[in-house]
């Protein structure tokens, strides 16, 4: 059992810069948590505070119920994989993996057993005699992971472990991490700036910006119900579209008027709006590019096409509304034959409607999602 609890954790550097503000999170046993955000958002700092490599300015970090604020990294029973691998260059792969066990005075026989086991899991058995400089990037990263898993730590920390690998290897290693996780059930905290890694690996994702937690939730929650404009824009490619909308209430519920088109607000949002003390009239309506549906009939919004990106199985259409606003539409073309696809690619104008069920409404003032009760405001750069 190893759960990690961060309570009001704050990190302020000597020069006064606050890297992490009031971070609260309870990580459950065997949970895979991903910290994600743009560079400088404090995600690595948070991880390093859990590891004990950075002092904590304020708040507490508990591992397994014990406050570890002042505990040395070596006493926290954690393992960490670094972005740049950090292998000991003068030791063989075997010794690299065995180092932590040797320091813990594990008998040689057992070390041998554990190292061979770990090497087998990672498929690096034939590399055990080599020095790190004789390995490729992917192999080095495997050794670094081997060094971490061999001790069976309470918490497994990974700091952008894949970002030094090329795209193909990264996909492969990502899949391997998922498999690895099945084999060694332990608590994971994983830092990345890559939203794909976050979405595919995490049980829960923590999105951070400028040292603040923006939202904590499952990949699905984050994708479907982003807590604020930042999360909405950060998760998903291409980015979510935002429209200015006017919110009105009548007998049938709420309607949002977007570019002359009336969009019925779905029930879960309407219910949330009813619970609010006040509902703003002007809102931002967010809708993902795949939820704008091309249509030839009925009520729709017209736009002229500026750029069409052929992605293979889908097309990204960058279009301009009459008022000059840009909008991106993602169209699946797998069902279309070549002629239809060509027709699609050579169009000049389109009309689209909005898949009402999928919309999100945001407060234009502070960027909060109106339907998410405890949404964090988007920090403004002070």
């Amino acid at each position: 059992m190893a759960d990690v609890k961060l309570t009001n954790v704050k990190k302020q550097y000597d020069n006064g810069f606050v890297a992490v503000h009031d971070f609260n999170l309870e990580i459950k046993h065997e949970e895979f948590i991903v910290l994600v955000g743009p560079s400088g958002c404090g995600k690595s700092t948070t991880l390093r505070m859990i590891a004990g490599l950075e002092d904590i300015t304020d708040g507490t970090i508990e591992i397994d119920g014990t406050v570890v604020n002042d505990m040395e990294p070596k006493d926290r029973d954690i393992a960490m994989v670094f972005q740049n691998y950090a292998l000991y260059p003068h030791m063989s792969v075997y010794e690299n993996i065995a180092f932590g066990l040797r320091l813990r005075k594990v008998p040689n026989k057992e070390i041998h057993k554990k190292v061979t086991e770990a090497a087998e899991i990672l498929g690096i058995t034939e590399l055990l005699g080599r020095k790190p400089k004789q390995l490729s990037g992917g192999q080095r990263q495997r050794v670094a992971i081997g060094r971490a898993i061999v001790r069976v730590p309470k918490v497994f920390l990974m700091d952008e472990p894949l970002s030094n690998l090329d795209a193909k290897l990264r996909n492969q290693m990502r899949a391997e991490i998922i498999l690895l996780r099945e084999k060694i059930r332990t608590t994971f905290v994983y830092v990345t700036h890559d939203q794909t890694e976050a979405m595919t690996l995490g049980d829960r994702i923590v999105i951070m910006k400028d040292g603040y937690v923006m939202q904590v939730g499952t990949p699905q929650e984050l994708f479907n119900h982003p807590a604020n404009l930042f999360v909405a824009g950060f998760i998903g490619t291409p980015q979510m579209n935002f429209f200015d909308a006017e919110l009105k209430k009548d007998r049938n519920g709420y309607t949002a008027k977007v570019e002359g088109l009336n969009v019925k607000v779905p029930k879960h949002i309407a219910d949330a709006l009813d619970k609010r003390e006040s509902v703003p009239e002007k809102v931002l309506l967010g809708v993902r590019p795949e939820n704008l549906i091309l249509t030839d009939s009925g009520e729709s919004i017209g736009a002229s096409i500026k750029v069409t990106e052929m992605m293979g199985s889908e097309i990204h259409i960058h279009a301009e509304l009459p008022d000059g606003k840009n909008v991106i539409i993602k169209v699946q073309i797998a069902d279309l034959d070549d002629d239809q696809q060509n027709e699609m690619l050579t169009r000049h104008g389109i009309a689209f409607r909005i898949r009402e069920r999928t919309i999100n409404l945001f407060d234009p003032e502070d960027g909060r999602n109106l339907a998410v009760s405890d949404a964090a405001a988007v920090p403004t750069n002070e």
Partner: protein
Amino acid sequence: MADTTKKYASKSGRERTSRILIYVFLTALSIIWMIPFFYLICQAFRGESRSMVTYFFPKQWSLENFRILFRETEFGHWYLNTLIIALFNAVLQTVIVLCVAYALSRMRFKGRKLLMNLMLILGMFPGFLSMIATYFILKLIGLTSENSVPGLILVYAASSGMGYYIAKGFFDTIPKSLDEAARIDGASRSRVFFRIIMPMAKPIIIYTIMMAFIAPWGDFMYASLITFGHEKAYNVAVGLYKWLDKEHLSNYFTVFCAGGLFVSVPVTALFLGLQKYYVEGVTGGAVKG
């Protein structure tokens, strides 16, 4: 085609001429540099007279000067003194310099910048400014004259932390994540230093040892002041220099040269023995590269 061949040929011809010129120049330079050393050897083995002469090659080769050196003078004492001081200092200074450099490279503490700047500025003042004060302090605790050997070791080792700069520069190039990985693996700071950093720091260890050995080996100023005329406590530099006095010169010049030859042996041996470690770096493969 023919044109390009010609061009090529003329280019290589020009290259060869310039290379010959360079080698001639370098050979001439090295001969000039070697002359004093050859002169020293020749004088050391000269048998016919012990004073200065006006010719280069001895008329009679002999080992007489070496016999005098070890049988009739205190040179053996001086040599031993110097060796003890240099060896002790090599060990102490290397340990101190590496520890200071590592701490300044890795740890962040209040006053770190101030300390580094202060040491740098203090290092710019010539050491002999504090010589008189040092002498009186050592005298108070009884480490001058006949006890000069421990006194000198203390003087050399005490200020050695100021020479942290080059070693710190080297440690700065070793990625911090190596330390961090080892600390998470279960190593204490000192274990990280000895098990992870030291094996990678061979070139800088060798460099520090050489510097720490050579400096007291050839030191004259401090040694002459602190021994203060106590002949048995001299080091080689002070001892040999006394023979260049007017009263001694005519009797000891060739002996002086023989001593000089002996003095150069350990330094040369040290350099030849350690130079191969000096050039190789071992950080390859630690992190992405």
